[in-house]
């Protein structure tokens, strides 16, 4: 069995599961946010149970439109908070809060071998820890909050093998954009993507989170990494309960094996309006921009801010560009503060925001006008994703985003740092 199959087998009380099999899975964590929780709560009430199956395994994080952007979103956040307090759920108010997929691993709430479902498509981020994590809708989440179980179809696993040495300024974001460009936005639909190879073994946790995060952009049910020393180092100081490490069998069956030589991969930019529409930075051409966003559940971790700071240090954001930098959580924010990054960002002409999903989905804190272009370290560049349907979003890694902010056009860091 593959890593994903082993986790699902254990959680469904079976010795073996095979792709396509419908199983009932016991979940270790059920997640929702200020957009998806209200619907889930409404459906939960309809089921007619009084209490969630286990309040320590149900997490609600206000992160999308908070601190509340308008009265309607304030009502939704209030509904979620009242339910979370009434049910004594795991809940983080703004201040302690972070973007859910940055926050939960930091808090040790997701551990290797877990099954996690969340009413947010980027729940797949936790695969970086060797967990099986997948996004679902609010009704599925309501049912799981009531029973602690959910039905799933066992996905086939696609094995992705990355070998070779990364070029300078190439990170997990570029590997995943390149992969999505190769297999397409439905290239892994219904499947689990297992990320392996020499390059992956040397890849930082933050870059792994970025890659697992965007598995959904290839249509995948989950993106998953083998657990190694790096994972265990990350988890060791955070875990407050036991966990189990699984690994794929040598004779595991994969639906497909795809190999990449990463030494050929440049920093990637995904052009509007699909994450698969990627080009190497050398083939971008002259594209002037109005905004840069560095942050999100995809690239809002410390490594991302450190990279952005390396590029921005001693330089100024172009006077035409709004450069918005958003640490993904309080922990990331505090670390950035201690390392002097926040001062550096502000002095360079960027604006720094409290953690929020805001601009990534056109909520607030950086909505685009018609005709405006944004380079963003987020995950989606669909029509209207960050504001006007006549605006454009270009996805990149934090180094490209920072360099673009300085030059006022899409550019790689090598143009300014030789």
């Amino acid at each position: 069995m593959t890593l994903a199959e082993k986790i699902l087998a254990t959680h469904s009380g079976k010795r073996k599961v095979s792709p396509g099999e419908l199983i009932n899975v016991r979940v270790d964590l059920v997640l929702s946010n200020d957009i998806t929780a209200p619907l889930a709560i409404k459906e939960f009430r309809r089921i007619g149970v009084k209490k969630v199956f286990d309040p320590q395994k149900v997490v609600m994080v206000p992160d999308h439109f908070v601190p509340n952007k308008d009265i309607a979103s304030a009502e939704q956040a209030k509904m979620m908070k009242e339910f979370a307090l009434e049910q004594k759920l795991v809940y983080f108010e703004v201040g302690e809060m972070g973007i859910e997929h940055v926050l939960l691993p930091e808090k040790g709430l997701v551990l290797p071998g877990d099954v996690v479902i969340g009413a947010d498509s980027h729940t797949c981020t936790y695969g970086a820890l060797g967990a099986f994590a997948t996004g679902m809708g609010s009704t599925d989440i309501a049912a799981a909050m009531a029973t602690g179980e959910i039905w799933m179809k066992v996905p086939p696993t696609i094995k992705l093998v990355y070998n070779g040495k990364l070029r300078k300024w190439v990170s997990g974001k570029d590997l995943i954009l390149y992969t999505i460009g190769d297999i397409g936005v439905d290239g892994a639909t219904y499947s689990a993507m297992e990320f392996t190879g020499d390059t992956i073994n040397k890849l930082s946790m933050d870059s792994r989170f970025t890659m697992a995060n965007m598995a959904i952009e290839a249509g995948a049910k989950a993106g998953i990494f083998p657990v190694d020393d790096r994972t265990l180092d990350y988890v060791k100081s955070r875990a407050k309960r036991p966990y189990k490490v699984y690994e794929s069998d040598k004779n595991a069956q994969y639906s497909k094996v795809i190999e990449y030589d990463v030494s050929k991969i440049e920093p990637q930019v995904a052009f509007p309006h699909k994450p698969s529409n990627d080009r190497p930075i050398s083939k971008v051409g002259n594209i002037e921009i109005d905004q840069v966003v560095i942050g999100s559940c995809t690239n809002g971790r410390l490594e991302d801010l450190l990279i952005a700071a390396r590029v921005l240090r001693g330089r100024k954001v172009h006077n035409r560009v709004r450069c918005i930098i958003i640490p993904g959580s309080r922990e990331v924010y505090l670390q950035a503060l201690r390392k002097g990054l926040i001062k550096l960002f502000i002095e360079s002409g960027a604006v720094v925001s409290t953690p929020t999903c805001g601009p990534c989905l056109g909520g607030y804190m950086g909505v685009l006008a018609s005709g405006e272009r944004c380079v963003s370290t987020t995950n989606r560049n669909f029509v209207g994703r960050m504001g006007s349907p006549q605006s454009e979003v270009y996805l990149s890694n934090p180094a490209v985003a920072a360099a673009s902010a300085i030059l006022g056009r899409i550019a790689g860091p090598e143009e300014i740092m030789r």
Partner: protein
Amino acid sequence: MKLRGKVHKYGADVNTDVIIPARYLNVYDPAELAQHCMEDLDPEFLKRVKPGDIIVAGSNFGCGSSREHAPLAIKAAGISCVIAKSFARIFYRNALNTGLPILECEEAVGKTRAGDILEVELSTGEIVNVTRGLTFKAKPFPAFMLKLIKAGGLIEYTKRKIAAQRSR
């Protein structure tokens, strides 16, 4: 259960951000969401749509965000059924859970144009293009899913499961 309506046709990879943009997700009432359904992809959709109409689209319909608001908005806009070459997996679950009928049928998508009249029989998966005199057969639901649909969706299914646990 027989459905009949006029076709609104779209291409591949229709994502949930264009079905219902996130800027309107500060509410969850289906009727309110429906007022912005498809507006970034097809601003005329809401003027054209009539109760019972059918969306026909290419592959990977409903990709992107997990927002259940997407099938809720489509249903509340009056759409009776979505027929696509394939669906993104979260949307597939959400549609069934919220009672929006969806069918996968590549041939029907290929041979149907905007404005055609379709008749759909959900129990058999038969799709008749009345305008062109063509009949197609959609992929039937897996047995497990039929059970869930017969129970009236996931909430009813869960209610029954909990009642059964309590009576043990």
